[in-house]
Structures are given as structure tokens and as C-alpha cells.
């Protein structure tokens, strides 16, 4: 009994510094956001309790549009990330010479400072001098220059593509690792039975990949929903707010206009969505791992 008690104390001693840190830097601010969202906090000296006013304001403005836009933006970004990531993983999984090098070459977007990659995309999207518009013109696909970040619809997709570019390496390497965890004897058995490469992929790789696919899409969903740097550096939410997602809108309200209270209400809404995603993620992953052990 005594031994167990000292073990418990030891375990908590080890955990305490990390727990305290996260409580002060994450949990307390979370609580503070919640409280702030019911006040009119701003640069003014005094702060008043205003009840639900900030939330009512949110739904009186175009925020519903922002919410929908955020979901559409996130959906396409995650979907494209998964498609390109799985495609890349399949290619890199092939036993061809040079694959070690190809794997290394996949990593840069994930590893270099995000802002730098975004600057490079910003230049590529430039209408007059950028690569994409330039090359498309040289190939005769488009007639005149297109400034991708200057028009709402193209800016929307441009920010998605850049977000995809930054997220793809992680998805690729994760899916690659999942593919390599598939037992080799399954393939060999199928091969002995005369199954072709495509058949093996469809009937062995793909079904065994589905848990990883679900896990990764949900992780990617949470990360993408939070995406800030890309849109902020490329368009700051413009033109005409066509790339304003919930995070960008919150930042603008809170830090740009210094309306802390209204910003906090928006942040609370984001937290609610994120918590739903997170709960779903835990549910799904625990069910997946339960299914695994039952098999």
C-alpha cells in the first residue's frame, strides 16, 4: 500500500510541471476567452458585463457567411490534401530506384518556416510577373495575365492550394508509413494466387488503409480549420472578405479593431466547433482501435 502511494506521488511529481504549464498557458486563456466573450472588453479602461450581446452581434453580421465559407474552405483543403497525399504515398511506396531521395524531397514544405513558403506562393500568384500566370500564358491556356489573389474566387482557391501544399508532406509520409505497415505476406499470398498489382492495391492496401485515412483526415480537419498564417500573409482575408475564415475574422475583430469582447465570442464559437471535431476524433479512433483488437 505504502509503495503504491509513493509511486503515485512520484508520477504526479513528474507530471506536475507540464500540467501546470498547460493549465496556465492554455486552460486559463480558454476560460478567460469564455468570460471575455460576455463583456465589452476593449482598449477602454473599464469593462462591463454585457451578457449575450456579443453573440447576438455575431449573428446579425455576415458571420453566418463566414462560417459557411470556413467549412467549404476546410472541406476542399482537406479533401485535396488527402487525395494528393495518398497519391504521393502510393508513388513513393513503389520499390523503384531513387525512392529514398524522393521521400526526402517531399519534406521541404512541411519543414521550412511556413511564412517563407507562403511568400514564394505569393510571388507565383502574381498576375504580371508570377510563374503560374506566366506559364499558363506561354502555353496559351489563358489570354491575359490573371492576378490570382486580386479576385475573390481565384483567391479562395489560391489560398486552398497553398494550404494543401503545406499539409501534403505530413499526409504523404503518414500514409506511406501506414502502407508499409501492411504485412508483406498478404501481398505475397495474393501474388501467388495471381492477383495483379491494381487488384492487390484495391483489395488489400486500400481496406487496410482506411483507419489511417480516417485518422489523418480528422487530424488534418482540425489543423486546417485553424489555418491562419497562409490566408493572413496572402490576402489578409480579402479581396472583399472572400477569403475571410472564422480565424481570420476573429483576429481582425480582436487584434485589428481591438474589440476583445466581440473577438472572444467568435473564438468561443471556433472552440465549440473544434471540440466537436475533437470528440468525434476520439470517438472514431477509439472505435477503430477497438475494432482492431477484436479482429
Amino acid at each position: 500500500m505504502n509503495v503504491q502511494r509513493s509511486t503515485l506521488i512520484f508520477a504526479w511529481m513528474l507530471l506536475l510541471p507540464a500540467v501546470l504549464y498547460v493549465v496556465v498557458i492554455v486552460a486559463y486563456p480558454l476560460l478567460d476567452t469564455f468570460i471575455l466573450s460576455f463583456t465589452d472588453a476593449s482598449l477602454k479602461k473599464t469593462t462591463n458585463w454585457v451578457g449575450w450581446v456579443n453573440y447576438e452581434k455575431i449573428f446579425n453580421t455576415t458571420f453566418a457567411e463566414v462560417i459557411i465559407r470556413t467549412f467549404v474552405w476546410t472541406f476542399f483543403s482537406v479533401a485535396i490534401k488527402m487525395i494528393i497525399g495518398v497519391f504521393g504515398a502510393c508513388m513513393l511506396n513503389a520499390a523503384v530506384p531513387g525512392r529514398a531521395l524522393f521521400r526526402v524531397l517531399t519534406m521541404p514544405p512541411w519543414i521550412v518556416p511556413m511564412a517563407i513558403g507562403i511568400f514564394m506562393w505569393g510571388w507565383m500568384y502574381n498576375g504580371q510577373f508570377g510563374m503560374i500566370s506566366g506559364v499558363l500564358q506561354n502555353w496559351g491556356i489563358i489570354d491575359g495575365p490573371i492576378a490570382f489573389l486580386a479576385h475573390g474566387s481565384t483567391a479562395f482557391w489560391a489560398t486552398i492550394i497553398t494550404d494543401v501544399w503545406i499539409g501534403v508532406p505530413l499526409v504523404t509520409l503518414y500514409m506511406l508509413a501506414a502502407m508499409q505497415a501492411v504485412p508483406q505476406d498478404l501481398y505475397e499470398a495474393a501474388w501467388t494466387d495471381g492477383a495483379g498489382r491494381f487488384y492487390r492495391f484495391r483489395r488489400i492496401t486500400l481496406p487496410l488503409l482506411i483507419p489511417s485515412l480516417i485518422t489523418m483526415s480528422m487530424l488534418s480537419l482540425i489543423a486546417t480549420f485553424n489555418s491562419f498564417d497562409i490566408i493572413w500573409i496572402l490576402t489578409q482575408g480579402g479581396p472583399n472578405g472572400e477569403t475571410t475564415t472564422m480565424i481570420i475574422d476573429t483576429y481582425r475583430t480582436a487584434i485589428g479593431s481591438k474589440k476583445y469582447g466581440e473577438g472572444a465570442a467568435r473564438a468561443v464559437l471556433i472552440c465549440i466547433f473544434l471540440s466537436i471535431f475533437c470528440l468525434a476524433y476520439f470517438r472514431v479512433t477509439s472505435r477503430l482501435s477497438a475494432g482492431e483488437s477484436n479482429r
Partner: protein
Amino acid sequence: MSTQPAMINRYRWYELVSIYAGIFLFLTFILAPFIEGFLVSLKPLGLLFSSPYKFWPENGSFAAYRTMWISVPGFARYIFNSFFISIIVTAIVLVLVVPASYAFARFTFRGSGLLLGAFLAVNMFSGAVLLIPLFRLMRTFGVLNTYFAMIVPGVAFLIPSAIWLLRTYMMRIPRELDEAAFVDGASHFYTLRRVILPIAMPGITVVAITTFIGSYAQQFIFALTFNSKTEYMPLPVGLFAYFGRQEVIWNELMAASFVGITPAIIVIFFLQRYLVSGLTAGAVKQ
């Protein structure tokens, strides 16, 4: 793994061609911005702003790599700041995470699963969501416009994945080692310091590398919001110095970007084995 490619892995010529074509397509998407960025850094500014678009630089030179230090004299300082912040962040994360991961890997007690879940849940919030209270908190601590304004929040968001990675690694260390030490009369703390830590060193190294890279890559929002002093700016925010009032000095911006990227690239080439294993350790169920 095997010296000879197994029969199953033999490709017909058209399969090989399509695989390489696929890889080429994929890597073009991944690397295009870097290639374009590098070519831009070689072009003189006048040539950059001329249509029609030319992919290859005519009379290109490395001049921008020299002039970038003159246009923005603080650039070396920005790189130093980025390194300094990342190193301190990594050190703090390790101090917090190594004992915590050991506790999660070895001891189960009431609420330990829930606590681990709570740590992982931190991952779902980006700094952007908590920016307002964090700003107030940093102001209360009196660290706005110092290195700590970027270090303190940075650490918190790197803790979850570090704990997850290191816990996975430590669970693979046989329990018998702890028990043997315990039978010999070693205290818990002694066991951790003298038995577990030396064995866990490779895992700790991986966590240190991924944390450093994460911190180096993600310095933006806190630096943008909590610090306005030029002398403390890290690279990503410092690069905005190349955005002049009239126009952006694109060739120098790209040259500076490549100089700033170099450390990350060096890390990739020398430590990529650790990175991939680090990334995938928590990812795939063993």
C-alpha cells in the same frame, strides 16, 4: 530490404514509366515554389518586373545574396533570433516533457488516460484562437515585446505532440529494467535518471529535433502579435522588412528566404531518418 528485388516487386517498363511520371508530377507540385523562388533570387529586380514572363533568368547573378544584407541590415539578427527562440523553446519542452512522458508510459492511475487526452486536446487549439487572453496574460507577466512573449506560448503548443512521441518511445523500453532496478533498491528517481534516460536518449533526440523544427517553422502569429521590437523579431516576421513602401524587393526577399531555409534543409538531409521515424512513431499502430 533484400539485396535482390523480389519477383513481386518487378515492374514492367510501362509501369516504371508511369510511376516515375507520377513521382515527377507529385514532386513538381512540392518543389515548384522553391525552384521559382530560387530563380527569382537570381534575377535582377528590373528583369523581374518585365513581361512577358521568362522562366529562366537572363544574365542572372547572385548579387541579391550580397545586397540583401545591405538593404535589411538586421537580417542576421532575425536568423539569430529564430535560432535562439527555437533552442530555448526546445530546451523548455524537453524539461517538461521527458518526466511527463515517463509518467504516462509507466504509471496508470485514476484519471491518467483522461489527463493524456487533455494534453492531446491542446493540439486542437491554434494560438490564433487563444490570442486575446494570451495577449492579456503576456501583458500581466510583463513580457510583451521580449523573447519570452514568443517563447512562452510557443512551448505550450509543442508539448502535446512531444509527449505523444516520447511516451510511445518509452513504452517500448522493457518494464523489466525498472523492476530490476527497483529490486536492487534503486529509488524511482534514480531509476529514471540512471536506467531510463540513457536508454531513451535516441527517442529524446528525435523529440528534440522535431520540436526544434516545429518551433523554427511556426514562428509567426505570436511574433506578429506579441512583439513589435525589431531587435527581437524572428525570421518569418523579419522578412517583411523587404516589403518596401513602394514595392517588394522580391529578388532579395527570395535570396533571404533561401538563406533562412538553409538550416532546415541541412537538418532534413542529415537527420531525415530520425524525422520520418519521429513522425510516424505515434502514427501507425504497432
